């Protein structure tokens, strides 16, 4: 079974921004939306592996910094007409701290 691991304080992730976590499961990008929802995706664009953590975040999407594919933070799915998928990880926020399930 996996465990919840505390990774970072919510206020240390910029709004509409992200932080990069290096873990046993590879690089994971943790995103924070305008309304303080938090999502975690593999830091790897389905197109050519661009670092999604470095993209522009808007709504619940991130635009990859390399070629501007738009990836949904909610399910890791690339927006049409592009096709592809990035793995998602479960995250939760408790008492101002962000926990990742890995």
């Amino acid at each position, binding site marked *: 079974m996996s465990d919840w*691991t505390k*990774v*970072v304080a919510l206020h*240390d992730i*910029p*709004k*509409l*921004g*992200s*932080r*990069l*976590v*290096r*873990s*046993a499961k590879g690089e994971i990008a943790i995103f924070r939306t*305008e*309304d303080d929802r938090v999502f975690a995706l593999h830091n790897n664009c389905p197109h*050519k*592996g*661009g*670092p999604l953590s*470095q*993209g*522009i*975040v*808007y*709504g619940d*999407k991130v*635009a990859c*910094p*390399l*070629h*501007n594919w*738009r990836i949904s933070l909610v399910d890791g799915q690339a927006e*049409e*007409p592009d096709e592809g998928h990035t793995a998602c990880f479960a995250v939760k926020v408790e008492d101002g701290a962000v926990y*990742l399930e*890995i």
Partner: protein
Amino acid sequence: MKKMKLVVVGNGMAGMRTVEELLKIAPDLYDITVFGDEPYPNYNRIMLSPVLANEQTIDDIILNSREWYAENNIRLYTNARINKIDRKNRLVYAEDGTSAEYDRLLLATGSRPFMLPIPGADLEGVIGYRDIQDTNAMIDAAKVYKHAVVIGGGLLGLEAANGLKIQGMDVTVVHRSEWLLERQLDKTAARMLQQSLEAKGLNFLLEKDTEQLTGKDGRVTAVRFKDGQEIPADLVVMAVGIRPNFALAESAGIHCDRGIVVNDTMQTYDPRIYAVGECVAHRGISYGLVAPLFEMAKVCATHLANFGIGRYVGSVTSTKLKVTGIDLFSAGDFTGGEDTEEIVLHDAVGGVYKKLIIKDDKIIGSVLYGDTTDGSWYFQLLRDKKPIHEIRDHLMFGQDSLGNTGHQGQDKASAMTDEMEVCGCNGVCKGTIVKAIKEKGLFTIDDVKKQTKAGSSCGSCVGLVEQILASALGGGYAPPSTNKAVCGCTDLNHEEVREQVRQHKYLNIPDAMTGMQWRTPNGCATCRPALNYYLISTWPHEAVDDPQSRFINERVHANIQKDGTYSVVPRMYGGVTTPNQLRKIADVADKYAVPMVKVTGGQRIDLLGVKKEDLVNMWADLDMPSGYAYAKGIRTVKTCVGSEFCRFGTQDSTQMGIDIEKAFDHMWAPHKVKFAVSGCPRNCAESGIKDVGIIGVDSGWEIYVGGNGGIKTEVAQFLCKVKSHDEVLEYSGAFIQIYREEARYLDRTVHWINRVGLDYVKKRVIEDAEGRKAAYERLLFALQGAVNPWAERVQKRDEHKEFETITL
């Protein structure tokens, strides 16, 4: 909440396009029901011609499959003709008794072929050309019969004739006027067209009035003319015009006048009822091409969605004949009059004819035959009403915007085979694009970019893609107006956004987005960087610069590479360095094991392949200013050796360059800005391809602007000559400041100058001395107190947590 009910009558191109636009902006507002009297879901009517010419099948041209209606929860009734609208009870009735209630009703009933009211018009074998049924009737007739007569030598008639010929029939086109396509072509072009079509085996009878059709056993056998001549005919296709379908609307008491009368919001006289497409009369005009219908659809959708924005103000249309192997384009007023001028190029042997009609320094019409490469360019100049005196000399020779890098110098889509690559960035071949246009029903450059990726990266192939679209869609293709919305999040264009930012003094992105009623909560990756730039350039020192709205490179002050590492390019003012700097750079490269050290074309040194978490430490160790090699802003000032050492030098270009780079350091701009200064006309610093290029001459300095060495090489244009070093700073600074204040985000200087004209720039920078000084002052003010962002990051390490990776 209970949804409102929208009923659409007419399952054709305009109606369904409106529904698609509506679903994009208000997917959950309506419960939608569609009635169509044809047995098929919505298909691409303009592709009936390629179907008849055996180039496509019916399956290829379906635009919205039945699954699409189901997925979008749209109730679709096919084979269902509406014959009554009960406006009082808001109900529509179909012939078979089906009824549906509406809160809003959209009429999109299209038009039908006009059938000449002559004896014999009701015989079997006499048809119009409008739908799949007509097309199938022609294909079937061709299997059994020999003689086809097409009445009407317009676009539709010629496409029908060409198709019937390919189906194996003997075809004669009968036309009343002196030449074919008299509404699109002048006589010369029409004669050339006729010759090409005759070479394909078609026969023509011009200036002929049809008197009657004669038949035997109920089927047509011959066509007789007023002059007594008679020709055999087993199939007669009438293509003499179309009539809007407004009988249904009229019977319900809605005001009609040769079409359903609508206002600029596509609303009929009954405010609950809207109408779009060929069935409407807007400002007295009914259109018969898809491009205007799509504009109507977009406007109508915003009103159905209750946004209450957008007006349809009519369209200028262009046409193209969809007969493979024939290139013909026509737009606007092509006959001209007393107050117009003509530019004509006629190569009878080469089969090329081009005519442009010009009035008051603007193109008002064009006819092209044989070489239509520049059709959409002329059409754009026409629609945008652009003054042409500056480009008049080259007008006839075309935009020459193609032949860019990345597609083997090809500049004519028609000369390319299907396997040839159109988009060099994304590896897309011509065949793939043509297939996508036809099968997926694409109509705009944006559609093609989205579906195929062609043209979506560097953009140099957009001209080719445009040609491919135009030839596949005929008049259905309308080049995008250059005056479009910033992105899907707003309907405002760049200029309007800038104006509002200034007027309402927006100082941060949330206020600006709320104030301008952005549709999305926090924009998208297209509008946020633009908006952020507009804020900080309009209100320097006051507006909040939002790092999250900047592209990664500007956020971290380094250039992202394909593997997610970064490059570090320190500034070396004017390309001048010292042994000390070089030693430092060497030490840093060693310490951080930098994989590659490269001298750039901008006369400085690039350390490539740096990990993000090393950036701050490296900057601290380097202790040099950022070179902004990542920025939409000032990049480098390239210099040559100049008079200090060079035996040809007339001016100290190196020092001039250093001074410029220091004066304008840290400057953000709509796009990257590159300067160069050469010490004499030998121009070793390549000033001719820079945004601002300066060339020293014996008596002073020449300033050139709008050069660009990229995808499309643009030679900088001469702006002025000045005497002193200070004047160089003032003139070039004022130029750049006006560009910073007025260009659209992501416009290079050349794009901006092309839009506003060099005359305008000269007026602002040269003639208006006060204005120039003020602009230069504004630039200096904006740059006051700017700091080296690297040093700032080093100092405030703790505030920039995003550089730190969390390790678990």
